[in-house]
């Protein structure tokens, strides 16, 4: 098996987002959001669909090319200093999928435009909608990688991104040096991707690797939003 590189432009209709989660990000629960805000959210959601142009690229490396140990993930001659949390989760991997994705630059222009026309509320809500779509596109991509892995009798891990779980965001440069970046995502010197609603990362593959629920107790970063989601789930389950 050679390196398998793919690019997809899924339609926005292939992505689903949960507007309840956006309401939650806005600060509300189902019981205290007003119809006014819900209507604005619904309208912006429908308008947003026109401006979202998803693009994903990924490369799957053949078995035997990747390994993880002691805070590092090695791929061919490149060592990613992922930190021990991620390398620990990936220790059974023997190959890897690397990816980058974006919902496109038109979305950025649209959502920022609201500030210029004096509607900061719309700008804020549109921005949250964009973030949800970027996450949803990452889920979509994970499924494609999982399918390909399964065809080759390989299991897959969660996705991990530079900037999470102790992996420095500056390592984006190493990741991008390996990617065939046909989605036109620009990486600044400071490792910021443009368009803003973009995500990059890796997924470990291997015969013995299995995806575990995203476990927040493996990591100690307090401000991480996955932790917030995790805690919300717990609160929901308890009530």
């Amino acid at each position, binding site marked *: 098996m050679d390196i398998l590189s793919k690019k997809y432009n899924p339609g926005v209709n292939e992505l689903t987002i949960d507007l309840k989660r956006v309401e939650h990000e*806005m*600060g*509300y629960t189902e019981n205290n959001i*007003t*119809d*006014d*805000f819900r209507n*604005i959210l619904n309208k912006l959601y429908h308008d947003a669909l026109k401006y979202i142009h998803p693009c994903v690229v990924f490369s799957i490396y053949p078995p035997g090319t990747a390994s993880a140990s002691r805070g590092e993930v090695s791929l061919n001659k490149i060592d990613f200093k992922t930190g021990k949390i991620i390398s620990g989760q990936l220790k059974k991997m023997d190959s890897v999928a690397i990816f980058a994705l974006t919902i496109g630059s038109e979305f950025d222009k649209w959502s*920022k435009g609201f*500030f210029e026309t*004096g*509607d*900061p*509320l719309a*700008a*804020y*809500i549109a*921005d949250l909608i964009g973030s949800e779509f970027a996450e949803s596109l990452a889920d979509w991509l994970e499924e494609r990688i999982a399918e390909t892995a399964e065809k080759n009798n390989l299991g897959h891990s969660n996705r991990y991104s530079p*900037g999470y779980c102790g992996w*420095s*965001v*500056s390592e984006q440069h190493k990741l991008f040096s390996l990617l065939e970046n046909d989605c036109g995502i620009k990486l*600044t*010197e*400071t*490792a*910021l991707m*443009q368009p*803003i609603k973009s995500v990059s990362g890796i997924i470990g593959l291997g015969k013995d690797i299995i995806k575990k629920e995203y476990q927040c107790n493996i990591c100690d970063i307090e*401000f991480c939003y996955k932790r917030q989601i995790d805690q919300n789930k717990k609160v929901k389950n308890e009530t």
Partner: protein
Amino acid sequence: MHDILEQLSICVERGKVDIKSPFPADMKGREGADELTRKAIENKIPASKILNDALMTGMQRIGEKFGQGKAFIPDLLIAAKAMNAAMEHLKPFFESGEAKHKGKIIMGTVSGDLHDIGKNIVKMVLKGSGWDVIDLGVDVSSQKFIDALAEHPGSYVGLSALLTTTMLHMQDTTQVIKDTYPGTKVFVGGAPLSQEFCDKIGADGYFRDPQSFAKYLSGIVQ
């Protein structure tokens, strides 16, 4: 209190911009901050009274609710929008000195960073709380902050960043500002920031949300 002023404060608190605006639903068709401010001026109510007894009161009420977890960023933003509609009518009074801002604050997203949603929200809330905000935009170099301080001496400064890579630039910017204009107060915020980081770089305060920042600033100028 004057009836117009009380109504105006409610319009600001609830985010009722003008008569055309469909929000909030229960105030549909009623006059909003725009019309009522015009009326107040026509009724010869002093601009400073309109500002303090109506507009600021409305913003304060919604700010308190935010502090108690009963209102959220969207509530602050619609209130700020109503406030800005009112402020348009007060512009001439600010120019003549009859009405005054609480002070000036220079805001920008630091160099290497292009994320502006957080900074823009803070800007809106501060403007709504009566501050004159000079927005330098994104990817702002230390030199640009220095130039802005030369143009607007005595201003406060607010820095924003999204990533741990770019938040490092807050350190040089804070340093350069403090070296060039000692005594300038520099405040920081953004997703990866913490009080600890703020202390480490010698900034004067970290705030997690715009409201606590606005409240703190109002406290230091009182």
